[in-house]
């Protein structure tokens, strides 16, 4: 006897709701765990001073700067490349065997462990190009690392824009580029922002690849050729080398708050953008 739909609906909602609550509970527990252990250590001096005694004392200001600069440089390189390739694959070519191979290749590269990108960076950027352990080689390596993710999410976002919009724009005498610029891209922006957030998240949380390419110098970088240390690397070195758990959690707390701010800012910016366009 088939269960009447009303009950399957209730069962489904409780099941899905339960799963969501469990997920949120676990995720909130992790944030609370880190903040509870880390927040007491977060004082103004901790945020503004230089680290001393191998990180046991002092603050993490140069490390915060490193954490902002590195992903920014990676995004400045990966965003145009990623979105550009997604636009080309979606708008300018038909679904051929080549585009399927490219999409398959990007999927596989999204799965490559970051340590391999780190080694590639070490051999290629640090070694062959003589950029040394620096912001530049770190940024380039991270850019290549998040490129597959940005291409894939941008492509999904572009493909989600209804085909009819392209047809209408085309019928009004818009060139392919004008259709992309005026209708497709602005409409796909939310999906692209999600891809950027995931890419940014991966850059900020990366340790292995950064240690091998951007180095671990905790001083303030004066140029693109100076080595930097990101908060994730700082947390890794403090926690794993057993230098100081308390400072490690402090760094993690600051990192979480920074990521939360960036996410909220991007989210409100996107909403404002959508509201302005189609009020």
């Amino acid at each position, binding site marked *: 006897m088939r269960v009447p739909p009303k009950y399957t609906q209730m069962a489904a909602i409780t099941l899905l709701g339960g799963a969501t609550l469990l997920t949120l509970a676990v995720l909130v527990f992790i944030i609370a765990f880190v903040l509870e252990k880390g927040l007491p250590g977060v004082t103004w001096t901790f945020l503004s001073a230089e680290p001393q005694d191998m990180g046991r004392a002092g603050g993490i200001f140069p490390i915060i700067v490193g954490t902002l600069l590195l992903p920014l440089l990676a995004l400045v390189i990966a965003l145009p490349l990623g979105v550009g390739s997604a636009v080309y694959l979606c708008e300018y070519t*038909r679904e051929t065997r080549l585009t399927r191979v490219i999409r398959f290749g990007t999927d596989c590269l999204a799965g490559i462990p970051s340590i391999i990108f780190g080694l590639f960076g070490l051999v290629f950027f640090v070694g062959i190009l003589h950029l040394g352990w620096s912001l530049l080689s770190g940024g380039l390596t991270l850019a290549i690392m998040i490129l597959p993710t940005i291409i894939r999410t941008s492509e999904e976002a572009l493909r989600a824009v209804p085909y*009819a*919009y*392209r*047809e*209408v*724009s*085309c*019928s*009004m*005498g*818009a*060139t392919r580029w*004008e259709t992309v610029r*005026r*209708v497709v891209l*602005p*409409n796909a922006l939310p999906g692209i922002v999600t891809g950027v957030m995931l890419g940014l998240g991966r850059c900020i949380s990366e340790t292995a690849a950064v240690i091998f390419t951007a180095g671990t110098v905790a001083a303030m970088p004066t140029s693109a050729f100076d080595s930097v240390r990101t908060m994730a690397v700082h947390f890794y070195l403090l926690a794993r080398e057993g230098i100081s758990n308390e400072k490690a959690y402090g760094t993690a707390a600051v990192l979480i708050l920074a990521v939360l701010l960036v996410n909220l800012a991007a989210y409100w910016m996107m909403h404002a953008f959508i509201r302005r*366009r*189609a*009020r």
Partner: protein
Amino acid sequence: MHAPLPTTDAKITAHEFCLFFGKIQALRNITLDVRRNSILGIIGPSGSGKTSFLRAINRLNDLHPACHTEGLLQLDQTDIYHPQCDPVALRKRIGMVFALPIPLPLNIYENVVYGPRLGHHCPPRAELDMLVERSLRAAFLWDEVKDRLHTSGLRLSGGQQQRLCLARVLAMQAEVILLDEPCSGLDPISTAKIEEALTTLKAQHTIVLVTNNTKQAARVADETAFFLMGELVEHGPTQKLFTVPDDPRTNDYVTGRFG
């Protein structure tokens, strides 16, 4: 087949025009003239190729990968499918209204000025405002939306959205307007408004109206063409076609015996 009408008066001329999607032939040697500043109604059962013919005029079929054509299709005596003819420039002169109203995901104002803003020279703001008002008035939509031009086009009702699409085409100042079953989902009042707009626009534009509503063709079209299985069965003044058609198949379709 009667001799083609004097060429000077014809805005669009098709001569033995065929259209293929890969191996499937959608149109078989269509020879047809559309007179300047007149409304040509195209009727026929669904799948008879009337929409394909409409989309062939503004080369929208090019978006389909395996589409190629034979024969001649001219706009103002210049071959539309000639390699030198730039499809983008062509589409600027030919506006199209689709069966399902598709307002762009922008506000009403930006929907209407979308066409004129394309290309390098973007007209000044004042001129755009005037163009928007004139186009919306011509589409009988101005009074209903004049104080909420900045709300989203997707918020309007079906009939209003279709009139917005018409206004959008008018703002392009296109010489030819193609309509693909514009009133298929609309209420009688919106349909009447659109038909009234078309009759007044006849003076400045050449209009090709594809419709499966024979009464609408009878009401609005100056001349009517009857398509069946990708062929042009008969083309002549609406009055003659609906009373004493030459071809028995037209007679059966018009009187509703089959179709």
